[in-house]
């Protein structure tokens, strides 16, 4: 049974592409066959985060428009052989993706992969709605910051109204992935706590990824963080999230290293 998962947020720069790459790689490392689909037409970046930018020939728009067959556009990762990428196009044509074309491609991908991870563009325009359209479940990426949480709330509303599942009256599974979290600052009251964000958005928590230098290092090198340094706290958070997605019962680790102050005054970051 294949699953279509959209990684979305509304706001830009919160870590959608980083999270798509890391979750996709973690699922593939767990033995699943995975395709990462970059829906950010015009501004593709997932190829760069995966280190596959030199190998892009065809893209999602070529496949949607029938100029290339799906197998020709798929790029297989050189490190994890069950991980694949369907890159976005660099075209400026806003209407390059059609609803019918995307539906056909998602259908073809369902026949080939266990997981279809759709990396949504920022915003609430056509690209974002097409990325979530066929999803079975959604990962809402948010930072503990007011504008990000507000935009996440709007996206949750769209997931509950604009997706095929929602229109069919079925349940849309949604998970919160909190990124760029700083447990120390949260403990000192300088940043909203995990619990605060969870209370506001009222969707289950998939994971908490701490602000971490490993994320930049991994993207510099073109590695998903789970591949670059599996022991890094950010990588462990993503791997744990992937195991949760696979239905494992896992206990979250506390987010980030906790300093003396946070140990004295802080509560556990992730329950």
């Amino acid at each position, binding site marked *: 049974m294949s699953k279509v998962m959209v990684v979305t947020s509304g706001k830009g720069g919160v870590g959608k592409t980083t999270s798509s790459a890391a979750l996709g790689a973690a699922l593939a490392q767990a033995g699943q066959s995975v395709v990462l689909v970059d829906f950010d037409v015009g501004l593709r970046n997932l190829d760069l985060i995966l280190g596959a930018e030199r190998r892009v020939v065809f893209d999602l728009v*070529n496949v949607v428009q029938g100029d290339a067959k799906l197998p020709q556009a798929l790029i297989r990762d050189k490190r994890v052989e069950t991980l694949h990428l369907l890159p976005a196009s660099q075209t400026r044509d806003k209407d390059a993706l059609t609803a019918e074309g995307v539906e056909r491609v998602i259908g073809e991908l369902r026949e080939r992969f266990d997981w279809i991870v759709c990396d949504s563009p920022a915003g609430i325009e056509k690209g974002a709605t097409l990325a979530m359209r066929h999803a079975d479940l959604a990962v809402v990426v948010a930072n503990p910051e007011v504008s990000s949480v507000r935009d996440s709330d709007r996206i949750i509303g769209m997931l509950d109204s604009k997706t095929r599942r929602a229109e069919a009256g079925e349940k849309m599974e949604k998970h919160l992935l909190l990124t760029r979290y700083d447990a120390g600052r949260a403990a000192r009251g300088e940043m909203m706590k995990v619990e605060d964000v969870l209370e506001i958005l009222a969707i289950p928590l998939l994971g908490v990824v701490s602000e971490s230098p490993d994320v930049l290092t991994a993207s510099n090198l073109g590695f998903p963080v789970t591949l670059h340094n599996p022991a890094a706290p950010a990588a462990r958070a993503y791997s744990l999230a992937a195991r949760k997605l696979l239905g494992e019962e896992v206990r979250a680790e506390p987010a980030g290293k906790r300093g003396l102050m946070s140990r004295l005054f802080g509560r556990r970051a992730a329950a």
Partner: protein
Amino acid sequence: MNLLHLFNRNRSAPVARDRLQVLLAHERALGGRADLAAVLEKEILEVIARHIPVDRDKVRVELERGDHVSTLAIDIEMPETTVARG
């Protein structure tokens, strides 16, 4: 920044800079036009299709853009019968 950082040989920023330079050189040269690799693939397939039936599902295209040299590999599965006839 401490001394350890200064002398850390596993610096990733130069790798990031090099990757971007190669990628952007290619993208700027294209200026929104179709990638040469895509054009070549299409035309090569057209020539081959004149002689043998080509199943587009059985064509694999691999590209590796390098700093100085890029390689395009097009892998076409030819049916037994056509090879024997040729």
